[in-house]
């Protein structure tokens, strides 16, 4: 019973990929990639996804460290919170971001009044939306890595006179680097593919918030199916590339 069902599962995963490749208009690929709107979207996606990964790293790695190393009341709640974007529909995430960081939002109204900062419709807004959905991938991976790190290494370094900075950069990061790199790459790939939260929170403005997934949607909406497929295949190639790069690190344990 297991084998036929497994085959069905594999088929369910493989057929959509084959469907894309089957319909891909290879001859039109260069035309599509030469299109100004598409190029703008590609450039923007690269910038926004790298920015989101950086933001996720700056706040996510310390969060993972605290979750792995410190015992405090509410730790389980915080860990559950770190997983919310994973299960929340991205569009709902976008609405939640609006209600938090929008012009009338919980925090957003003060950001607007005190500093004149509004996130919606800006590149920064797209970055925040992408970081929001990407964060769990980084936090989960990094927390596991930190937890598996033997505390004796830190103790030894500390007795040898290492300060907190040296401890992080010369002990913790080098020892957990493979996992951290895997977490960062997964987070980046998730940020690159982000659609729902971005379009809801940051809207769609060419060059500012219209990333590649939004461009795919626009091409579909306007009946330019060829362009949408070419861009989709490009995203597919990137994601497969990420999986191959991570093959031995995190995804397949032998």
């Amino acid at each position, binding site marked *: 019973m297991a084998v036929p069902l497994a085959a069905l599962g594999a088929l369910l995963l493989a057929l959509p990929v084959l469907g894309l490749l089957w319909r891909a208009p290879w001859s039109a690929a260069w035309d599509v990639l030469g299109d100004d709107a598409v190029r703008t979207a590609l450039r923007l996606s690269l910038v926004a996804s790298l920015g989101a990964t950086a933001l996720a790293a700056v706040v996510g790695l310390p969060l993972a460290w605290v979750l792995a190393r410190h015992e405090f009341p509410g730790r389980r709640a915080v860990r559950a919170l770190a997983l919310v974007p994973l299960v929340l529909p991205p569009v709902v995430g976008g609405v939640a971001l*609006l209600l938090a960081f*929008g*012009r*009338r939002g919980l925090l957003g109204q003060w950001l607007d009044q005190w500093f004149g900062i*509004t996130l*919606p*419709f800006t590149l920064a807004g797209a970055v925040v939306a992408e970081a929001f959905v990407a964060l769990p991938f980084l936090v989960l991976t990094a927390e596991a890595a930190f937890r598996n790190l033997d505390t004796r290494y830190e103790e030894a370094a500390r007795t040898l006179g290492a300060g907190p900075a040296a401890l992080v950069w010369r002990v913790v990061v080098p020892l957990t680097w493979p996992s951290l790199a895997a977490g960062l790459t997964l987070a980046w790939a998730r940020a690159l593919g982000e659609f729902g939260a971005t*379009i809801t929170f*940051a*809207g*769609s*403005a*060419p060059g500012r*918030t219209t990333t590649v997934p939004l461009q795919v*949607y*626009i091409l*579909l*909406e*306007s*009946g330019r199916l060829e362009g949408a497929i070419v861009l989709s295949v490009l995203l597919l190639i990137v994601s497969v590339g990420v999986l191959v790069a991570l093959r031995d690190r995190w995804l397949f344990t032998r």
Partner: protein
Amino acid sequence: MRRVWLVVLLVLAACGTGDDDAAITVLAASSLTEAMTEIGAAFEEAEGVEVTLSFGGSSSLAEQANQGAPADVIVTADRASLAKVDDAGEPTDVARNRLAIIVEPGNPKRITGLADLARDDVVLVLCAPEVPCGRFGALALEKAGVVVTPASLEEKVKGVVSKVTLGEADAGLVYVTDVEAAGDDAAGVDIDVAADRELEAVYSMAVLGQSEHAALAAEFIGFVAGAEGRRVLAAHGFLAP
């Protein structure tokens, strides 16, 4: 246990035949959300038919229809989008709609016309050029000689409405009926060029080629174009075709 399964099967079978007998699916332009929901309910009541409505941007609806979406009727906000459907019956015009500026309640930015949309302190959201309201909006701005930098281009008109009612945008170009539907959450500002025939959305509907209930679908179109449909459309601010 076996008896339970039997009951489940019977229930499923009953549902199945019920659906097949009297049900139609309608793809309708986003701006028709309130009016078409009401008309659909009235048709259900009058004919004992289940009406399933699916709302979206007109261009995306046309695309869905071409991809073989299992629907019976399509209503778009312009004739051009309907013309893109490969396999549809004769179109029937059922209503017209005009553009208006949607602003926050009380119009805090004191927007009086299209020219104000170019102001630096006004966050403006428009429909994307792929959907009818985006095309009409761009044409209206062009005719008025106003050059704007929109903060976002939404894929359907209700996206513009929600950006304004949530307070993220100060103004947007939508249809008169959308301002009406937003009630107390928004206010409207009339624009001079609204009465220009070229800038009017003409709602057009047709039976889809893939419909398995073509007779019922045609009947629904007749209902929308008839007295009851017109009454509801007028109540929501639509103009007669």
